């Protein structure tokens, strides 16, 4: 139990640092740690979102305060974002996740190389 507590807090620290540093990806680092507890895949993903939402609020406020961006710049993305999330939650079972994972990996790899070059 003690070890679980340590792992849980560590998953929060990792998610927090990545969220503050990169403005995303907190869930990506939290999920594997959460899975090492008693949580199953879907529980780990859901719980990661319940962590990254408040973290993003704080992080977003820090970014906004620093003048890195304005809220007006973010507005155009909100509606398509909500739409995408809705479609995603309903289409989930009908989508070949493995194929999607590989396509996503390819896109991320390409973008990573572009940024590094």
């Amino acid at each position, binding site marked *: 139990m003690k070890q679980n507590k340590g792992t*849980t*807090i560590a998953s*929060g620290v990792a*998610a*927090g640092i*990545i*969220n*503050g*540093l*990169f*403005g*995303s990806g*907190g869930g*990506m680092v939290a999920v594997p740690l959460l899975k090492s507890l008693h*949580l*199953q*895949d*879907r*529980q780990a993903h*859901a*719980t990661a*979102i*319940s962590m*990254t*939402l*408040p*973290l*993003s609020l*704080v*992080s977003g406020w*820090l*970014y906004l305060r620093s003048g*890195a961006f304005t809220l007006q710049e*973010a507005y*155009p*993305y*909100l509606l398509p*974002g*909500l*739409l*995408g*999330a809705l*479609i*995603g*939650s*309903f*289409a*989930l*079972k009908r*989508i*070949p*996740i493995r194929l*999607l994972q*590989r396509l*996503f*990996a390819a896109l991320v*790899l390409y973008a*990573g*190389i572009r*940024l590094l070059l």
Partner: protein
Amino acid sequence: MIQWLAALASALLGSMGLGGGSVLIIYLSAFVGMEQMRAQGINLVFFIPVALLSLVIHTKNKLVSWRTAALALVGGLPGVFAGYYLAQWLGSELLSKFFGGFLLLIAVRTFYQSFQRPKESPQNTGSGEQGPRRGGLQ
């Protein structure tokens, strides 16, 4: 139009457990060439309503472990400040390089994951033999 699609795809993938908002940052930073800090800030705000919606659905399906989340926040909040000040210190130019490196790691991990079996209990899946992972919705 393209930015609209980028946001849509980002949330779509995010709701399936594929890297949350990172597609929107990738679009803004790696393809449009926006400053890294600006892309990240926009992405954070973008993520909030998407996460709220997902959370409502996940809560209905009783998938959220709130105790775990609350405990994680104890470490998460100081973590956010540390990460943010690190980002400020690096500056957009250098930060985008680190982000690029982070993306390479995500790519490797996601690719590796696509070959793994999901971890789910038998009563949740109906049968022991199942195909690809199912994420968010019941």
